[in-house]
């Protein structure tokens, strides 16, 4: 199977890899090609615990953790986390989704569960990128959610006082 995988590091580095995986015939190893080149002859990957891989690349040992919650996947190598997006390129949907990802209206989602304490920019307001739209509160801290782009607040989907979950759509900027 082949996967297109985009990895984003916290320092902003982003790289997309085409990873081809299959099972070796006479062993329990994997055959792995990255961007068409053999990654490691006989890649030895084990899954000792849920969300944990132990991967030997040659003799180099990597313990890798996955956090697949909250609608995004993060992969931790050593102490460092990377955000990854996995696409099976055979899937038409995935390709379509990719094509459309940069256009159109942008959503503001709740980055955490909390209470909506204030609507700064009601529907119809013109906003700059980075301008505050909604304030939510959790754990005694108030957090201002900012517009991801210059535009007009098309819709506010929550009312002041409402409780929201992480990932809930709160507003749409057009």
């Amino acid at each position, binding site marked *: *199977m082949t*996967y297109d*995988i985009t*990895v984003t*590091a*916290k*320092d902003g*580095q982003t*790289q997309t890899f085409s*990873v081809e*995986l299959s*099972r070796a015939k006479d*062993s*329990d190893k*994997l055959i*792995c090609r*990255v961007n068409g080149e053999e990654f490691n002859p006989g*890649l030895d*990957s*084990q*899954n*000792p*615990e*849920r*969300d944990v*891989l132990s*991967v030997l690349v040659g003799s180099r040992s*990597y313990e*890798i*953790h*996955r*956090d*697949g*919650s*909250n*609608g*995004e*996947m*993060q*992969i*931790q*190598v*050593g*102490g*460092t*986390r*990377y955000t*990854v997006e*996995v696409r099976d390129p055979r899937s038409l*949907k*995935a390709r379509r*989704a990719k094509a459309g990802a940069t256009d159109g209206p942008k959503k503001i989602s709740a*980055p*955490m*569960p909390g209470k909506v304490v204030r609507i700064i920019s009601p529907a119809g307001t013109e906003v700059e990128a980075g301008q505050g739209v909604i304030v939510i509160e*959790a*754990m*005694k*801290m108030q*957090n201002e959610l900012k517009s991801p782009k210059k535009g007009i607040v098309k819709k506010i989907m929550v009312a002041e006082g409402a409780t929201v979950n992480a990932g809930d759509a709160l507003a749409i900027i057009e």
Partner: protein
Amino acid sequence: MFKKILIANRGEIAVRIIRACRELGIASVAVYSDVDRNALHVRKADEAYAIGPAAARESYLNLEKILAVAKKSGADAVHPGYGFLSENAAFAEACDKAGVKFIGPTAAAMNIMGSKTSARRAMEAAGVPFVPGSSKGLTLDEAASVSEKVGYPVMLKAAAGGGGKGMRLVASAAELKSAYEGASSEAARAFNSGEVYIEKYIDRPRHIEVQVFGDEHGNVVYLGERECSVQRRHQKVIEEAPSPIVDAEMRSKMGATAVQVAKAAGYTNAGTVEFLVDAQKNFYFLEMNTRLQVEHPVTELVTGLDLVHLQIQVAAGKKLPFKQEDVVLRGHAIECRIYAEDPDNNFFPSPGKITRLMTPSGPGIREDSGVYEGWNVPLDYDPMLSKLIAYAPTREMAIGRMLRALDEYFVAGIKTNLALFRKILRDADFCAARIDTGYLERLLSARSKTLPSSADDLKIAAVAAAIFAMNGSGTNGAAAAKNGTQSSANENGAWKKTARQEALR
């Protein structure tokens, strides 16, 4: 000795006190709000009582409810932990009236220290060194004249406050009026008192505090100091003991001053005297915290003592089992406060379900945690999950050890500040102990916000993601098929759902 102790708190400190009770053969009573029925402290206590809704005012801060549980359960003492009711003199007094021992100082001592201005008056009388400034609440006109006298820049501070609320730095006389009004109204909202006072501003001060302990027989000792200069928005982030800049002579001077402070207030049980220290190592009394501190473990590790056991023994009327000269510091300890917050996203809090939790252990590592895998961190309280503490013979080894432990730590489902600690502990200034209370804010605003990532690791992350995807999609790599250690069907389902969401974005 007490037979049963009610712990009027939640989270890691409640668990820590329950553990002490169990070790001493004392029954423990937990209280919990509606969102905390499954909290670790409820699971670990011998008894547990519901005390109402999530909002702290209606549960953990409600002294009538807590006292009712004390009565009902037959507890003969109450440990307040830190936060919540721990520095509430009215609560200490109510416990006293109800015949339940409050494990902490007397209400009288708390009252003296509870207001910064009254603390200052008492301490000035006792000859304790202070940052130049006013010793009482000021009108705007008084503030202007005091500021002229001590010289700008000055700090405006709320008399009743803490945690940075109602504080303003004033660089010149022109800024004073608006700063005064801002600080005063913020203080009024936060503490029901708009009283503010003024202190000379000290550039790049260190925050160093001294642990003191008094019994009920007039003995007061100090247990060395803690360096707490690594702060963000006036909240401590990393604490260590001893302070890298305090030598034996300075320690005994600060210690003697701290004991003097405690004695002036008739202080008993555990307390902390906070000092500001300037570049010339002059130290100035800041305030006294009349409770056990979050960061007490670093003192425990370098003194070999157990402060919660001591608190209980002293509250039960026992004498301190050692003298000042028996207290010897050894080695170095560092504490990281693990929070549910996202350092990459302006430190947004991150409550929610912990879907995976792997914690470090081994030599020199202590973890005082209040959470577990599967626990849903509620959005109603402080975001501290756990305290990770490393001990080693030297500061350098303790830093190496903490970095090792941080690499073993993994939390999924919610964001944590683990990566922040990796960054601080690798920072050259931190390693050289060039820290002050502004250090962390400067580090955070520096251009290079994260450690550079290696191209190799990016590739490994991609390969690992592909393997996880393959394992999850049923066509199974060698890995999952072998050893029967494949992820459960359930979990794969969740992952597939996530993968779909990813694709649809």
